[in-house]
């Protein structure tokens, strides 16, 4: 049981992620999360404003169901499978974060400075959260995929486009982490 309750090492998680991808193809579909954002837009009536969203969202119900599973999976893991949610970070990272204004790094999964209710209801905190979402949603659809569609499927297919996109993920991530985050908190 400890094997399940302790954090799972990378060499367990990576192959299991690949197995999830395999199962989606085995069931005749594809593996990608960010296209669901477009389906949600279409469901919400975005077709009235932008023609692209006039597609029949019901044809993507299989993928919305997959996403509903992600939510349930998060609930199950949180309730029963992860009694200790400290993250064993590199001590250098804890030090780095403390210097840029994020305390108690790794004590839990998420920093309070970004995800606590106090942060959510502050102007800066709200802008960080909505801004992060906007960038991820816009960028993922501009590039035509996120970490699942480009990162896992595209790289596994050795698509040139996915190497460019994942290179972009890293350029953007490095700019944010090294050049912008130190000035936000």
């Amino acid at each position, binding site marked *: 049981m400890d094997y399940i309750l302790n954090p799972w090492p990378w060499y367990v998680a990576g192959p299991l992620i690949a197995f999830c991808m395999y199962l989606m193809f085995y069931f005749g579909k594809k593996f990608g999360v*960010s296209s669901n954002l477009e389906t949600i837009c279409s469901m919400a009536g975005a077709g009235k404003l932008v023609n692209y969203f006039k597609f029949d969202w019901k044809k993507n119900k299989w993928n919305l169901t997959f996403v509903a599973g992600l939510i349930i999976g998060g609930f199950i893991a949180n309730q029963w*499978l992860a009694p200790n949610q400290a993250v064993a970070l590199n001590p250098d990272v804890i030090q780095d974060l403390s210097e840029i204004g994020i305390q108690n790094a790794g004590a839990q999964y998420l920093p309070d400075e970004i995800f606590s209710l106090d942060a959510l209801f502050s102007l800066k905190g709200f802008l960080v959260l909505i801004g992060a979402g906007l960038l991820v*949603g816009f960028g993922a659809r501009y590039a035509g995929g996120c970490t699942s569609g480009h990162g896992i499927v595209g790289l596994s297919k050795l698509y040139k486009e996915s190497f460019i996109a*994942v290179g972009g993920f890293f350029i*953007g991530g490095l700019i944010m982490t090294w050049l*912008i985050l130190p000035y936000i908190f």
Partner: protein
Amino acid sequence: MKYLKFLLVGIFFGIVLFKAEVISWFRIYEMFKFKSFHMYGVIGSAVVIGLVIMFLFKKRKLKTIKGEAVHVEPKKKGVAKNLLGGIIFGLGWALGGACPGPMFVLLGKGVVAIIVVLIGATLGAFLYHAFKHKLPH
């Protein structure tokens, strides 16, 4: 009922992302600081096994449940769209510490603030399609 299998794969994928700490903001920060192998190991080993699976799909050693060959859609060409879209995505990934899959897992974890991130992501997808004709591809 015909969608139950997708629900189950989703639940399993969600548990994997949770248990491997892929949904932790700190793990994403640590990855971009090159201070831990963990995230590189997760993505790298997924891709290595993925390569084998894709090879077996191509050789038709692995097929769909109906016994048909697996077709994987090609990605749309264009250096500008993949690079610029990728960079914008990366900025958000490192800021919020979550890509789309983990956002939904965090919602299930009960993180209220992630609702704002998800609204932003949905709005971002909308804005891309509203303004894509003005962007380089």
